[in-house]
């Protein structure tokens, strides 16, 4: 119950109920006051008229004539009659159906009165109230006319009753749906909790149930949480794949390193041999370190924090720098190099990462093509935007493997013997993803053609 009261829908309902109750009370107070005042005024009009008619009936203005008139009037049936009291100048009762009245001129309200037996009863034990008007006649006798205010009581009671009933209804109407909705809300929260509990306990495939076609906030939340869980699961799986690849791929150079060192220890080597072995060990560990830093680089790029430092870079300049830096390298290896770079092209991104992305592609082409191959790099503006291409006429990548080469440590069977870490293209993919650049591998017939499509506007 406590949980239910703490749900937001219940609280909202309670606030609504409170507000409507206040509005009702205000309405009630106003109606009560206005009705009471109107009825009171009506009663007083009646009394004034009766008083005036009595005075007019006793033409001489003496008490004796009034006595006669009063005895007539008190005989009228209950409810139709007023209450009267007439006394002489000493206060002794002369006529009327009321006893023991204090002589006060003007309006007064009389309570706890008893009428004389012969006249209309003033109810049994009811606490009747009389609104009364009194005045002295010319002969010093005192005449009082009163009227029971029961009509006013009735009206007031009716108002109170109807308002009490209505407020009760309003409260019930406001709070019950709140309770109902709160109950439903709690039910769904419980199902989310059950699902997350299961996930915490290791059932990673568990998902939060949604209501289906109706897309309220909770459903949206559930769907978003599910999407987050999907992507987390994907990340965890790729993490698992990456860590097993790392373990597998680093074992080889590490064991080679160890073997080298052991060889040196076992053999009675000359000084030059030892130096040579140390040199080899340093090269081997440098390779390991560079693999690690490449991995680190990829994960840094994948974390997307670099987007904060994006600014407009001169893309043509980056392409030209790469062409100038690698052109001689390509030629030195006996391959042909051509470049066709459109000038004046700009792009929003990270210059350092874009440079490395392009360098990786060109280095890939250099490493995986035979002597006499031709390598080309180009940047052109097309209808769809800027398109960069790094192409060669080497052996290319079989279509089935074009997706897999972007996975960390994935290497084509035929390139196992060429030096490389299998981390070049994964970094290209990470940098491209960071920039919203689409990377496509095409058949260059023969060879590989890497097409980079730079979007016109910066990624979100």
């Amino acid at each position, binding site marked *: 119950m406590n949980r239910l009261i703490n749900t937001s829908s219940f609280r909202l309902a309670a606030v609504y109920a409170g507000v409507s109750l206040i509005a009702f009370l205000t309405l009630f107070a106003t109606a009560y006051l206005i009705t009471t005042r109107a009825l009171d005024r009506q009663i007083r009009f009646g009394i004034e008229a009766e008083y005036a008619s009595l005075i007019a009936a006793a033409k001489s203005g003496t008490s004796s004539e009034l006595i006669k008139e009063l005895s007539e009037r008190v005989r009228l049936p209950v409810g139709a009659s007023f209450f009267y009291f007439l006394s002489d100048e000493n206060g002794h009762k002369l006529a009327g159906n009321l006893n023991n009245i204090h002589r006060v001129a003007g309006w007064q309200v009389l309570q706890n009165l008893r009428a004389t037996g012969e006249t209309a009863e003033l109810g049994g034990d009811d606490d009747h109230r009389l609104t009364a008007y009194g005045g002295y006649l010319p002969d010093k006798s005192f005449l009082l006319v009163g009227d029971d205010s029961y009509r006013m009581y009735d009206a007031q009671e009716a108002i109170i009753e109807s308002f009490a009933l209505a407020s009760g209804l309003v409260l019930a109407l406001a709070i019950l749906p709140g309770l109902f909705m709160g109950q439903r809300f709690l039910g769904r929260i419980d199902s989310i909790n059950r699902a997350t509990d299961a996930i915490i306990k290791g059932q990673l495939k568990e998902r939060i149930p949604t209501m289906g076609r109706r897309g309220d906030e909770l459903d949206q939340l559930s769907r978003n949480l599910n999407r987050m869980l999907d992507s987390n699961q994907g990340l965890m799986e790729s993490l698992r794949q990456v860590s097993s690849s790392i373990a597998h791929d680093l074992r080889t150079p590490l064991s080679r390193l160890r073997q080298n060192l052991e060889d040196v220890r076992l053999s009675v080597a000359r000084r030059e041999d030892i130096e040579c072995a140390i040199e080899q060990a340093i090269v081997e560990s440098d390779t390991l370190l560079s693999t690690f830093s490449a991995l*680190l680089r990829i994960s840094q790029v994948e974390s997307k924090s670099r987007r904060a430092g994006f600014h407009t870079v001169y893309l043509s300049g980056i392409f030209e720098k790469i062409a100038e*830096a690698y052109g001689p390298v390509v030629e030195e290896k006996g391959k042909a190099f051509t470049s066709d770079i459109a000038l004046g092209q700009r792009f929003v991104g990270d210059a*350092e990462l874009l440079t490395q992305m392009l*360098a990786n592609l060109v*280095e890939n082409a250099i*490493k995986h093509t035979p002597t006499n191959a031709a390598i080309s790099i180009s940047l052109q503006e097309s209808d769809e935007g800027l398109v960069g291409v790094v192409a060669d006429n080497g052996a290319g990548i079989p279509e089935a493997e074009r997706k897999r080469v972007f996975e960390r440590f994935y290497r084509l069977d035929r390139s196992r013997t060429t030096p490389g870490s299998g981390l070049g293209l994964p970094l290209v993919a990470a940098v491209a993803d960071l920039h919203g650049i689409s990377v496509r591998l095409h058949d260059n017939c023969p060879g590989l053609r890497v097409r980079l499509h730079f979007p016109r506007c910066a990624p979100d």
Partner: protein
Amino acid sequence: MHLLLIEDDQRTADFILRGLKEHGHVTDHALGGKDGLYLATTQDYDILIVDRMVPELDGLTIVKTLRASGNRVPVLFLTTMASIDDRVEGLEGGGDDYLVKPFAFAELLARLGALMRRPPLNDVKTLLSVADLRMDLLKREVKRAGKRIELQPQEFRLLEYLLRNQGRVVTRTMLLENVWEFHFDPQTSVVETHMSRLRAKVDRGFDRELIQTVRGAGYCIRNEQAD
């Protein structure tokens, strides 16, 4: 040179201290940031070698504090964080150079050499020369023994960097960072290829080779023969 090393890892510190001592440098060592800052403000050093992550006060804070008090001593940052963000942050925070661990000792030595003789910023020469080689940065012209040499833009920048650091060893990484602005390690021989092309143009056909290879360290342009 009188150096200060602020480094909390004892093994790294031993490696650096031993190497610097062998090369004739006197080096003070602080294990923590507070001691380091105290020494840096009270002693007169030629260069500070500061690890980015030291206890008490991190390296960046130490250097920022020094710079705020007007201390202009050259600073070389050491770090295990191979991220560019850290490098930019370090250089903007007042560091003069940046070296990622692990590094070869020759690399550290070359960088210290470059820092030691770094000319003041406003003193940028437009005419560089060594022996009979002249480089005019305004005319973008290179001559050796009065004979004009045509260089590609990247060869020009490579020669300019060597000349600005003449007599000192520059490493492959220093060249990649300063000539090509490559902050990664290329898998192909970019530096070697351009260097051999530059040598072919600058040194071939002359009796003396000005550009020399320093084994296990890098390159050096100087007037006298290598020993």
